[in-house]
């Protein structure tokens, strides 16, 4: 029997962890001589106070949904995929190749192809660590870390030596043709009379990210393969006894994970930059870890956590613009969120469990 009711497990514990992380962040802001309340107000105003702010918040959130789902799927198979950064980097390469290689007549045709390109490249980058884990027993965490670095070096090489247009000094691809331009939320919402900010980068990819959340939920809780993934994640020996092939689960879960991370590129590469530049992922692969941990690896939780981190990112950028608090504050908050919701989970959980135990005892006695 579980000690805690389900709501305490999925809502109370993460919220308290989050509050702890926020409290320490406030303390940090105080220590560097700024006002945390004013900072929070400015973040809310900057990230949620206008459709411009929302446009950036949702743009960042789109990235984090994809990388968060990527970490979550692997986590259900009890694998810790730290390679989202590298997989998203390679996904960007896939999207860029698709966008530049074919003279697309319309974005509606280019987008599905780019999605396939990004997902394939992301999955391919996850496939090698997955195969090494499944067949050679190499620890997936270490290999995916190594593949982040190898991926960055590979992209560096490709951008400098292969895909850079002639005469350009900038290590980046040529601009994608105008036909591959994805409609922004402004262009999508204007026909139905909503005036959304023109200059914000949120685009149709956000809707794809929402679909991805539903798809991952369906996969994990409504398909046989999803059941096998979760069974394997709970107990490998139990799953093997039930006739589930570890090789199939490790490969399958990691390929889906890598594909999701690679899909992120339709947002940042195709939707925003409209060309592939160095370090286009900007750490979103790592934020996926925080997002998945906070969202308890459930697609709905991932969605909420991704929007929260989108808010932090846009709010943090506003802070850096208007105060002397550097943007690195977000990195600190991110670290604290991972620390409290992930590593120090038991520190929060144990006292709460004790409270519930005491309550139950009183109820049975009384």
């Amino acid at each position, binding site marked *: 029997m579980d000690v805690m009711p389900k709501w305490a497990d999925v809502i109370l514990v993460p919220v308290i962890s989050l509050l702890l992380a926020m409290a320490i962040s406030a303390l*940090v802001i105080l*220590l*560097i*001589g700024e006002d945390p309340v004013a900072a929070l107000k400015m973040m809310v105003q900057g990230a949620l106070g206008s459709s411009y702010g929302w446009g950036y918040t949702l743009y960042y959130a789109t990235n984090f949904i994809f990388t968060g789902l990527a970490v979550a799927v692997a986590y259900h198979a009890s694998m*810790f995929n*730290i390679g989202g950064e590298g997989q998203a980097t390679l996904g960007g390469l896939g999207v860029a190749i698709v966008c530049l290689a074919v003279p697309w007549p319309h974005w509606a045709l280019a987008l599905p192809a780019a999605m396939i390109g990004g997902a394939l490249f992301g999955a391919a980058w996850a496939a*090698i660590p997955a195969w*090494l884990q499944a067949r*050679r*027993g*190499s*620890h997936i*965490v*270490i*290999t995916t*870390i*190594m*593949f982040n*670095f*190898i991926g*960055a*070096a*590979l992209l*560096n*090489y490709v951008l*400098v*030596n292969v895909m850079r247009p002639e005469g350009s000094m900038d290590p980046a691809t040529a601009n994608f043709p105008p036909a591959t331009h994805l409609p922004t939320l402004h262009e999508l919402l204007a026909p139905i009379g909503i005036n959304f900010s023109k200059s914000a980068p949120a685009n149709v990819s956000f809707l794809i990210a929402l679909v991805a959340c539903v798809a991952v939920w369906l996969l994990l809780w409504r398909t046989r393969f999803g059941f096998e993934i979760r069974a394997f994640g709970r107990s490998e020996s139990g799953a093997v006894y039930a006739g589930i092939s570890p090789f199939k689960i490790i490969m399958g879960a990691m390929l889906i994970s890598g594909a999701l991370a690679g899909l992120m590129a339709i947002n940042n590469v195709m939707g925003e930059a409209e060309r592939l530049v160095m370090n286009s992922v900007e750490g979103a692969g*790592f934020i996926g*870890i925080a997002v998945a*941990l906070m969202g308890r690896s459930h697609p709905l939780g991932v969605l909420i956590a991704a929007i929260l981190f989108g808010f932090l990112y846009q709010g943090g950028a506003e802070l850096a613009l208007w105060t*002397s*608090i*550097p943007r*690195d*504050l*977000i*990195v*600190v*908050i*991110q*670290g*604290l969120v*991972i*620390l409290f919701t*992930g*590593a*120090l*989970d*038991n*520190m929060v959980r*144990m006292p709460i469990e004790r409270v519930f135990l005491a309550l139950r005892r009183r109820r049975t006695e009384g």
Partner: protein
Amino acid sequence: MGFDTVIQVLDSTLRLSTPLLLACLAGLFSERSGIFDIGLEAKMLVAAFFSAAVAYTTGSVWIGLLAGIAASLVFAGIHGLASITFRGNQLISGVALNFLASGMTVLIAQSWFKQGGRTPSLIGGARFEPIDLPFAGSVAGVPIVGPIYSDLLSGHSVLVYVALLAVPATWWLLFRTRFGLRLRAVGENPAAVDTAGVSVVGLRYAAVGIAGVLCGIAGAYLATGLQAGFVKEMTAGRGYIALAALIFAKWRPWHALGACWLFGLLQALALRTDVVEAIFPFRMPVQLLDSMPYILTVVILAGFVGKAIPPRAGGQPYVKER
């Protein structure tokens, strides 16, 4: 390519491998006791910042070194708390600490020095100066041996020699003392150590603490020896390369020295494109050179060239009561 160039490259290899070696030995202690540590990077980074900041304000590099070690120990303490006391996920804890260090150092640096997340340049007593080994001047004229002794071996900061001495010290501590035996045992079979009446928690905290000290020295060397001051993200993935070296060395001290020299050589070569062009008959992309440590580690991990088997209880929190 002349003899002088070889000496120059090896000289910078020795220097660049020092932080790798210290961090690698730190990881060795931690992982041998069963605590995975991907937060080596974090500990080095905070140590680099605090050593540079304190060395700048006090003017003494030694006080800076102590501050760096202290900062690194605080991070080691958090890692210990999360992974030993609260039995959390050690990998997640390491990831969290890496972010914390990366953001925190810039935040504090900006708040203290207002120079865009760096410390002011260190001069004079705030830096580790190169020290000359005895007779370095007088044997410099001797062919072959002279340059090797006076240019390659002599003339480094004291921490380079500390790192080199740390290798036999680690070997002796781990393989020739009772503490070392217990520490290795706790990474393989903590229940057995517990049954023998030795504290698993205590041993693991000790290992994590030693790792903290070694990472502290590594970070201090980066900011006050190798360079003159702290800059944002100055560890530049060295913690991960050290981790790679640790796997490459299969968790053994002397092999760690070899692995760190190899990876240090690769870093040194990446800085000398003229030498790279002279060695390789084809055009060697510098990106390939950069990612070589990671590629080699993956190959080793895959078990194609000997098998790397980590300590058996690595990554698992020890639960006494069942």
